């Protein structure tokens, strides 16, 4: 079982409480290919080399415990993701959308959530799911084809995966309108919503309508765009000629870019934005600048549209590597820790695999379940015909197999 979930990293973004001397932005982010107008300003707290830097506005105190917790999250979700990819390769999943490279954006933002916050994901937020304490087998049902994603979205405070690009951002906005109607904004116990979407999604009308709505109704929502530089094969230049985070301003709310491969910065900016939302300050947009290190899904072949050197350059900015360097350099953990974590992750993966293989196929007639909360006489009739047909078929099959000895 995958219940051994980390305690929520409990740090609060102490908005500027610990103002370290402002440092020049580190060279952590080289001019990325995926961008037309070069914009060197983005929030970073941990360089690719593992150096912890301060930011004048997003300073956070993490305890060693918390650093370890975040690192553990990163390692485990990558390991589980790799297992899912392997399962797909072996034919046990129909397809898999890997989060490889986006662990920090997801864990950072996911750990910044308060218990009462609601998440609206795409189909790739396995890391956020983990942060919400949802059994990691859950999304595999969708990708295996046994269900549409099996968790209880109300209990888990995380909605279902959404495959139709951008659609969930409007749901998130509506949900946030509901929070405001319920009077659940204005204090530390206020509720907020986070809506995940990709760089490609920013082109869809729905996402822009969400911006309009969120702004007009001043809803408690954080739009969290993981700009992983690609929408399948298309580089982000096909979606935007200006940095994505700047779009927010035109709708009348703040936007910023964070180093999405930096779990600390991702945590800090998301925490701040969620807190602003829950306190009634309205929406904001976070562009987590990251990179899809793998294929779009297991069906994809990225060698057709991007060069190896680009991938290699981004590997230097790997979100886990820099955190490991930091933990080592700061001697927050020893090598036994890494080994222990590795076997913990392996165990979780082995467990996951076993449980995936054991997932039962749904009963055929289950497709007639849950079409309508109140049912439908017409559909009940179809279901009966379906049952009768199969009953007849099975009878004759049994007969046939008796005769022919076949295995039907």
């Amino acid at each position, binding site marked *: 079982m995958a219940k051994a979930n980390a305690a929520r990293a409990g740090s609060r973004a102490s908005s500027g409480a610990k103002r370290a001397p402002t440092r020049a932005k580190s060279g952590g982010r080289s001019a990325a290919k995926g961008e037309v107008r070069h914009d060197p300003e983005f929030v970073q707290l941990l360089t690719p080399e593992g150096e912890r830097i301060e930011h004048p506005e997003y300073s956070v105190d993490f305890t060693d415990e918390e650093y370890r917790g975040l690192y553990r999250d990163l390692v485990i979700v990558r390991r589980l993701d790799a297992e899912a990819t392997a399962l797909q390769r072996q034919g046990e999943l129909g397809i898999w959308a890997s989060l490889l490279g986006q662990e920090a954006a997801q864990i950072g933002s996911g750990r910044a959530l308060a218990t009462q916050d609601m998440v609206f994901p795409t189909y790739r937020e396995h890391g956020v799911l983990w942060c919400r304490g949802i059994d990691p087998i859950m999304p595999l049902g969708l990708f295996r084809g046994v269900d549409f994603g099996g968790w209880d979205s109300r209990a888990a405070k995380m909605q279902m995966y959404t495959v139709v690009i951008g659609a969930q951002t409007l749901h998130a906005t509506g949900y946030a309108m509901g929070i405001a109607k319920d009077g659940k904004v204005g204090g530390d116990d206020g509720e907020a919503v986070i809506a995940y979407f990709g760089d490609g999604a920013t082109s869809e009308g729905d996402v822009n309508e969400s911006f309009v709505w969120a702004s007009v109704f001043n809803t408690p929502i954080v739009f969290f765009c993981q700009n992983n530089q690609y929408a399948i094969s298309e580089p982000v230049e096909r979606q935007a000629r200006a940095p994505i985070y700047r779009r927010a301003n035109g709708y009348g709310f703040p936007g910023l870019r964070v180093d999405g491969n930096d779990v600390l910065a991702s945590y800090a900016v998301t925490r701040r934005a969620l807190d602003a939302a829950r306190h009634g300050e309205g929406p904001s947009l976070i562009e987590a600048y990251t990179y899809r290190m793998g294929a779009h899904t297991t069906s994809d072949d990225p060698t057709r549209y991007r060069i190896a050197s680009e991938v290699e350059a981004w590997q230097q900015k790997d979100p886990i590597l820099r955190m490991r360097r930091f933990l080592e350099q700061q001697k927050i953990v020893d090598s036994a820790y890494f080994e222990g974590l590795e076997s913990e992750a392996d165990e979780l993966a082995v467990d996951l695999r076993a449980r995936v293989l054991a997932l039962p196929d749904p009963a055929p007639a289950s497709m007639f379940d849950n079409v309508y909360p109140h049912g439908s*006489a017409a559909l009940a009739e179809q279901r009966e015909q379906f049952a009768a047909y199969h009953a007849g078929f099975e009878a004759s099959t049994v007969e046939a197999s008796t005769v022919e000895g076949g295995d039907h």
Partner: protein
Amino acid sequence: MAETMTIGKALNSGLRRAMEDDSKVLLMGEDIGKLGGVFRITDALQKDFGEDRVIDTPLAESGIVGTAIGLALRGYRPVCEIQFDGFVFPAFDQIVTQLAKMFARSGGRVALPVVIRIPFGGGIGAVEHHSESPEAYFAHTPGLKVVSCATPHDAYWMIQQAVASDDPIIFMEPKRRYWEKGEVDTSRSLLPLHASHLLREGTDCTVVAYGPMVRVAVDAATAAAEDNGRQLEVIDLRSVSPLDLKPVYESVRKTGRLVIVHEAPLTGSISGEIASKVAGECFYSLEAPVMRVTGFDVPYPPARIEEEYLPDLDRVLDAVDRTFTF
């Protein structure tokens, strides 16, 4: 408690009562607040229930339905107004891929009690996109239910039943009939939401219609009785999806003849479905092929010739006549 009111007023009163009954009921749409909607169906509701419950939305239909879904996920019961039939299409994706499927996707955990009100059909002399009959698109979408009212009584009750239902419901309002009056019994509803209704008994030919065409069917029955003594049996379908066809089958077994009437274009319309089902169920009773009196397979024409497009009494009687030539 019988009151005489128009269909428009009955919808307004029904919405008011639904809002009184359940504080989670919200109205959303373009111009539904201060203005009370372009047809005044939500007249005075914002004044009485406040801006928090009667929401003038930005001008974007996908946004209306998409945020309504989110509000429903939060426990609200949103009633969306689409200003005119022709403007539901920007919301089509949210309706078909999200609203219709959420209950199934969630394994039955999450119902979306959203009602989408659409004033539909022609006959009001409007410009393009204001006279469409898009019900077949929704009827072809599993997970949605589609109803249409034809009388003030049904308007009053069906809108309340739709709001009370946990199913996502497309509520088609016969806009050209908004101003027609009738009796509303405000004490009891009589029929469930998805039942068809035998409006007028007859022995010679069954006529099925819904929404704005029910009146045409009834008028045709009156005219037929006067003209040549033919007794037409008229059924108001009320529910376009799911279809409640048992009363139709029974009727056709009696009359042996069926005419279906609607405004939507012929091909791929709901009358094809009904005709096909009836032809199967009443295979040995049908004395003539099922006739369909519908709009044509053309874009809704300019207002000056819309009456030539819309089914009317004469076209219905002509179809009835044709069923007697077999």
